[in-house]
């Protein structure tokens, strides 16, 4: 793995390096281009002219574009648009592919132009043209020289002088001129006097003009200087050699002879061709550098235009080629972001189009799967919510249920144990149920464990038991336990359900009710005969005491009958009271009033101390007679159960909700067994007690919505009567 990781890191490093180098390609190309631009910068004698500046401008534009793109690449920190890199690579590759052959072609063409120029402007061609021109020029010189030599013979010709002077008639002079023309080969001969007036002339062939053409500056110059002069004149019908010879008289020039010879057309045409070719050659030679520069710049211009066009075409082609790739990358990015509503537009029917269509199919299926997953997730969420609500209801129900519920699975592991179980069995707060129920079966849970074992090993599916549980504080609970075996048929859970109810109060109430019924029956069946029995015993004592032999024995017996009868009457009275306990007549009573009553009633006992809070105006809604009866009972029990030296305290504690009367004594106290049965009817530690006092007192307290409890069995023996200060209307009724 480490080796693979190292190789991956090297691969990533190489890719990053390659990417950084690729980013520098446009700038490197710009550097090369700007170097070429500087090298080709036009100078004054370069000859490139306007085209050179156009090329420089194009190269500068391309350089700026490359620099701008290169800088953008270098400053690019975020991921570029999908496909842009591929597009740039394609454009660069295509331009480079075109640029290299274009540059090669340009260099080859330049070489060819140089070679061609060397051939065109070869020294032999130069010499040849010079000679040809010399030949042509020689022809013209020869014509002029011949004409001048011939004209020199006529400068002082007597006939011509006579003709110019007017001493020869026209016919004679014309004949002389005709003869002269024929002998010299001139096509036209004209005579002018000193005033430039034509005095004679002949012309070979047809007459071309009625009037003689005026003398040219050359002719006048000839007369002025007295020299023979020739000139070449180009006319519509060809070139003509014109000669002027001054006619010199005895003193001065008196006239001018003008002759013309038409040059041969073929020779003249060839001579003019030679001259034109020579001029063109010299002109080309003079512009040799300019031609070369122009050719170079034209080629460069064409190359640049081709490169630019190739770049544009490559860009369009690359854009068209990379558009599907960019769309695909963008679509994948959106899918990565979680947007599944992605569809690539219609693609060409090629590999990229097939890829796009496959992507669309994949996206559609992915969307369907995600929707199905979301729907399933929603269903599961709703089911989970419903289950949680049911669980919450069940937990609330179990938490608020007064019946303890224990759920044990088939493996004996406790799966559920509600708060009521803790409350009924007084499990401590830090008590945590262990997994195995058998391990829980100790302490207060021991009897529950026994019930579970019985349910576990019996053949029936249902079991119900009532049993007493001895609590750690000596208190005994009467529990009703019901157990059921949960079948695994169909249900996902199998095990045992234990429902535990504390029916101590119910049993107590049933017991009280039973005692009340017994009391009612006893009162009804026993109370009536007791009075005649007592009266009869008293009558026997009065009438037959003197007649018996042993009066002492008789007195003892009759007294015993009377005492026991009275005791039975009291007992019957208590039973009657317990059976027909009247409803309390509630009214607001000062708590201190009851304490004051007790203080007055028991003030004879020095060891009784009643704590009365002065100026306490706390009221309590109660039946004062019944409460007074309870307090008397408690005080009487304390007096009778303790020695003369033991102190007895009575005091009240008033809170916002309750009023409490506390009776404490420092006597021997109550043993553990007696404490549990203290409030049961017919339980008494006194020999002459009916055992109904505390039962009646507790009944009174409960009828008030309060409670009578033994807070401490000894040292001190502490009873507390607690009554609500405001009794609810419903409870009162």
């Amino acid at each position, binding site marked *: 793995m480490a080796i693979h990781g190292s190789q991956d890191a090297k691969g990533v490093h190489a890719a990053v390096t390659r990417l950084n180098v690729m980013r520098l390609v446009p700038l490197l190309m710009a550097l090369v281009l700007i170097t070429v631009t500087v090298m080709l910068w036009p100078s*004054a004698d370069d*000859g490139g*002219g*306007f*085209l050179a*500046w156009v090329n420089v401008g194009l190269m500068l534009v391309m350089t700026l574009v490359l620099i701008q793109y290169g800088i953008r690449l270098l400053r690019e920190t975020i991921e570029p648009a999908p496909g842009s890199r591929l597009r740039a690579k394609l454009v660069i590759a295509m331009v480079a592919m075109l640029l290299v052959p274009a540059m090669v072609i340009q260099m080859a063409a330049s070489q060819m132009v140089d070679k061609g120029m060397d051939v065109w402007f070869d020294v032999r061609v130069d010499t040849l043209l010079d000679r040809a*021109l010399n030949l*042509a*020029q020689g022809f*013209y010189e020869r014509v002029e020289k011949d004409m001048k030599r011939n004209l020199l013979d006529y400068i002082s010709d007597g006939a011509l002088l006579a003709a110019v002077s007017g001493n020869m008639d026209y016919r004679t002079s014309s004949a002389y001129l005709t003869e002269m023309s024929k002998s010299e080969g001139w096509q036209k001969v004209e005579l002018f006097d000193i005033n430039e007036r034509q005095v004679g002339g002949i012309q070979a062939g047809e007459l071309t003009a009625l009037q003689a053409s005026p003398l040219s*500056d050359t002719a006048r110059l000839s007369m002025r200087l007295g020299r023979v002069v020739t*000139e*070449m004149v180009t006319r519509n019908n060809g070139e003509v050699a014109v000669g002027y010879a001054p006619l010199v008289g005895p003193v001065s020039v008196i006239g001018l002879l003008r002759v013309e010879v038409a040059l041969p057309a073929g020779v003249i045409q060839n*001579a*003019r061709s030679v*001259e034109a070719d*020579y*001029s063109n050659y*010299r*002109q*080309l030679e*003079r*512009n040799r550098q*300019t*031609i070369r520069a*122009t*050719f170079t710049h*034209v080629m460069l211009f064409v190359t640049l235009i081709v490169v630019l066009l190739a770049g544009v075409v490559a860009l369009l082609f690359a854009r068209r080629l990379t558009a599907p790739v960019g769309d695909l990358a963008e679509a994948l990015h959106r899918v990565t972001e979680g947007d599944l509503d992605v569809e690539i537009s219609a693609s060409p029917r090629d590999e990229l189009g097939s890829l796009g269509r496959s992507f669309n199919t994949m996206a559609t299926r992915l969307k369907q799967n995600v929707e199905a997953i979301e729907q399933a997730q929603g269903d599961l969420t709703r089911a989970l919510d419903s289950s949680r609500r049911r669980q919450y209801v069940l937990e609330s129900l179990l938490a608020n249920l007064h019946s303890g519920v224990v759920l044990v699975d088939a493996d004996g592991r406790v799966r559920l144990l509600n708060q009521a179980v803790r409350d009924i069995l007084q499990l401590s707060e830090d008590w945590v149920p262990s997994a195995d129920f058998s391990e829980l079966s100790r302490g207060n849970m021991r009897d529950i464990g026994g019930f579970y074992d019985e349910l576990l090993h019996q053949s029936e599916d249902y079991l119900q038991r009532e049993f007493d549980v001895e609590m750690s504080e000596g208190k005994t609970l009467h529990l009703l336990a019901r157990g059921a075996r949960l079948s695994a048929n169909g249900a996902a859970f199998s095990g045992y359900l234990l429902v535990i109810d504390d029916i101590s109060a119910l049993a107590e109430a049933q017991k009280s009710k039973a005692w009340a019924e017994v009391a009612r029956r006893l009162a009804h069946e026993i109370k009536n005969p007791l009075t005649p029995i007592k009266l009869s015993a008293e009558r026997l004592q009065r009438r037959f005491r003197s007649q018996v032999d042993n009066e002492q024995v008789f007195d003892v017996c009759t007294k015993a009958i009377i005492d026991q009868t009275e005791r039975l009457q009291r007992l019957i009275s208590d039973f009657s009271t317990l059976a027909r306990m009247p409803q309390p007549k509630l009214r607001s009573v000062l708590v201190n009033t009851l304490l004051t009553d007790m203080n007055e009633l028991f003030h004879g006992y020095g060891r009784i101390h009643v704590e009365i809070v002065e100026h306490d105006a706390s009221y309590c809604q109660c039946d004062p007679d019944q409460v007074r009866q309870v307090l008397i009972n408690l005080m009487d029990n304390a007096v009778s159960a303790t020695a003369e030296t033991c102190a007895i305290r009575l005091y009240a504690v008033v809170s916002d909700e309750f009023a409490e009367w506390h009776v404490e004594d420092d006597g021997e106290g109550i043993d553990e067994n007696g404490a549990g049965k203290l409030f049961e009817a017919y339980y008494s530690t006194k020999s002459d007690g009916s055992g109904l006092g505390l039962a009646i007192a507790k009944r009174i307290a409960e009828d008030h919505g309060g409670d009578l409890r033994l807070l401490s069995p000894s040292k001190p023996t502490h009873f507390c009567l607690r009554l609500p200060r405001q009794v609810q209307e419903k409870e009162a009724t």
Partner: protein
Amino acid sequence: MMAAVLFVPVSFAADASESLQVQTDAKVIYCTAQLAVEGEMFQQPLQDGIAVATEWRVKVGKVREYWLNDNIGDITVIRRVEPDLLTRSWLLIDHSSGISHRVYSIDSAIAFLTSLNHFPVLDRSLLLVKTPYRVGVNVNIHIGDANDAWWSGLWPSTAAKMQKEFTLQ
């Protein structure tokens, strides 16, 4: 394109010996300008049979440094010399007037190309007295046939520039 490129205008550095003078008479403003160039520049092409032309653009304007609408009038004069190698003569052609004549001295041809003598430029009535004006002469030299490339008008080259300020009294 090759043919057009052959006849691009030739540019030369301006010479300090160039001169421009303004003359006036009662009705017309004249100018006399002399273009100072090396003799070889015109002599060699003329001897090689290459036609040479000088284009004189004479402009009269107000003396304004920062305003473009300073022009009052301008005129263009084209002088051209066509050599005849066979007769060793040079045909001088003034395209403005259409007058031409042949000379047999190359110095006359060069003088024809490099000087503008007492050339009428503008009617005096168009100018105000005691107002400074400026006469500017731009000279372009064309060696070869004067068939310039189409783009030469976009970026005209100037062989020489002369300026002269004057004020009518």
